[in-house]
């Protein structure tokens, strides 16, 4: 584990990018499908929250 911590910053960056990208993308799709305007923002927040949770699971415990 301690050896892999060298790449921790890169791994964290990857999670933080893909979280909002995926759930923000889902929100964007819902927005264009249903014609609403709030799914994108909530998807971004949800994705970022989930990504932070994932980072905590992997590196914080």
């Amino acid at each position, binding site marked *: 584990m301690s050896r892999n*911590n060298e790449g921790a*910053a890169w791994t*964290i960056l990857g999670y933080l990018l893909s979280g*909002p990208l995926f759930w*923000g993308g889902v929100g964007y799709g819902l927005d264009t499908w249903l014609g609403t305007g709030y799914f994108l923002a909530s998807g971004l927040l949800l994705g*970022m929250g989930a990504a*932070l949770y994932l980072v905590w699971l992997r*590196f*914080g415990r």
Partner: protein
Amino acid sequence: MTGTLNLVGYGLAAIGPGLAVGMIFSAYINGVARQPEARSVLQPIAFLGFAMAEALALFGLVLAFVL
């Protein structure tokens, strides 16, 4: 000259997280330099702090393209 002001806004918004990441790792390096055995305690805290600060920068990045 053409372009979008979103990117200027993103540049300004990235200042804060940039400073924050620098401060977090400077504190981490200071702590480990003073007390090397505290490394395993400080490392998760430093990386979580880094993740929090970086999250804000990435919000700015995403919103600069989305808005």
